[in-house]
């Protein structure tokens, strides 16, 4: 309680400095926020693309219906498979003529339907890595009535490479900015400690304990961190809102990310303040 009062008093006593450090933290977390927004949306897009990752198994001409239906339920039982759709020759033709309207005349004129029947498989979320796809394809090739298996392998690989790059960049940039924030808050708190060095030396003289002296600065770091986090949240939201209404539709960040961001900001504030205050206090005292 006292610490809170002291901390806010300290912040009010040096409003420029506190404002500056909040702004600095806010800005660095804002950059993280922008990145998170980008990463999250890439992620969303990837999931979307991914959910469309399909494996198609073309069946040999004249495969009996009984075998098809047995195979269908068997394949549906693979752990990686979410859905199996059987597309008969007729349906295949129908789909093709519908999708390629320019050629619909050609299709209707055909005497023999050249399109094979097929199984279209959708994979479960979490089972869409290139390895999973390859495994499923291999198993499908094991059926003798399966003529060919297609599954845009390169496409799948690319999707995954992109996600790995996105993840790596997020991690690298995120930690760089987190480090920057720690240094910034540390400096701000050290300046705050310095600005109150007389107070601190009086406290030491009259016999205040170290933790008592430190506490208000830690609370100040906490408040600065949280305030910076909220500022960053506001800026990020503003950026999201602006892009969303003028350029392209973006997803807002998940609540968990937002909460984690604020907690991270608070933790950064306390951590950095702790570092700064320890250094400065030991410098103030003659000991």
């Amino acid at each position: 309680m006292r610490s809170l009062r002291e901390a806010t008093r300290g912040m009010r006593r040096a409003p420029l400095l506190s404002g500056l450090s909040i702004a600095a933290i806010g800005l660095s977390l804002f950059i993280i926020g922008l990145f998170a927004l980008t990463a999250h949306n890439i992620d969303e897009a990837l999931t979307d693309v991914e959910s469309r990752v399909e494996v198609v198994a073309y069946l040999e001409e004249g495969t009996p219906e009984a075998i098809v239906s047995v195979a269908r339920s068997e394949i549906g039982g693979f752990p990686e498979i979410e859905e199996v759709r059987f597309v008969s020759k007729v349906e295949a033709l129908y789909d093709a003529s519908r999708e390629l309207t320019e050629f619909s005349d050609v299709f209707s004129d055909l005497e023999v339907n050249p399109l094979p029947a097929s199984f279209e498989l959708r994979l479960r979320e979490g089972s869409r890595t290139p390895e999973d796809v390859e495994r499923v394809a291999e198993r499908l090739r094991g059926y003798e009535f399966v003529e060919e298996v297609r599954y845009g392998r390169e496409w799948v690989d690319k999707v995954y490479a992109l996600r790995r790059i996105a993840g790596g960049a997020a991690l690298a940039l995120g930690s760089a900015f987190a480090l920057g924030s720690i240094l910034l808050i540390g400096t701000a708190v050290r300046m705050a400690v310095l600005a109150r060095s007389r107070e601190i030396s009086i406290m030491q003289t009259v016999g205040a304990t170290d933790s008592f002296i430190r506490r208000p600065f830690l609370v100040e770091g906490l408040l600065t961190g949280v305030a910076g986090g909220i500022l960053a949240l506001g800026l990020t939201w503003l950026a999201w809102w602006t892009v969303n209404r003028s350029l392209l539709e973006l997803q807002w960040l998940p609540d968990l990310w937002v909460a984690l961001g604020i907690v991270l900001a608070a933790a950064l504030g306390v951590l950095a303040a702790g570092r700064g205050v320890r250094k400065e206090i030991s410098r103030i005292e003659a000991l």
Partner: protein
Amino acid sequence: MIQFRSVTKRYARSAPALDDVSFHVRKGEFVFLTGPSGAGKTSILKLIHMQGLPTEGEVRVSKYSSRKIRRREIPELRRRVGYVFQDFQLLEGLTAAENVAFALECTGTPRSRIEARVQRLLGQVGLAPRARSYPRELSGGEQQRVVIARALSTEPVVLLADEPTGNLDERATTGVFELFRRINAAGTTVVMATHDAELIRRNPGIRVLELEDGAVVYDSVSAGTGPGRST
């Protein structure tokens, strides 16, 4: 109460500020610490307050020893040993009462008791009417009384004063000095560093410890001439 045993204090790479200093101050004593500038008066007071440890030898204060004290015991010690600076060291943004209250808060006095304690302390140093004044509105003597009230806030058994009258005129000096006498009469051990030969001469009943170049060159007790200076 305070004991120095062959204390040497050397600050980074210079001649020692104190060189093999030994003396003993008993409970309830009043001691003048004197000597030319740079003799080591402040160094002695700081060692008593454990602002730094001796390079060699041992400083004992009450039950604490410089050899054994732990960092977390230092605040305890400092609550038993008040410190008064020549340059006051008051917080300019706080009133006299708030400056004293600040010290009480810092040392864990319950909030409900602070106001009454502040009034009593300011009354004790004769400053009750100026409680709401800011340091810049107070004379040097008055400011020094606030500092003394602050130093007394933890009810110390020892009061250290580093040239407390150095910035005061003669009248204010007399007033502040009388205050120290009264505090001492109530049982508190007082060690006062001073340049003021006149003050020492006017109070021949008080023990004098004279330093020069970091060594005790005269102690009116061990000199066998009784308290006061013989020269």
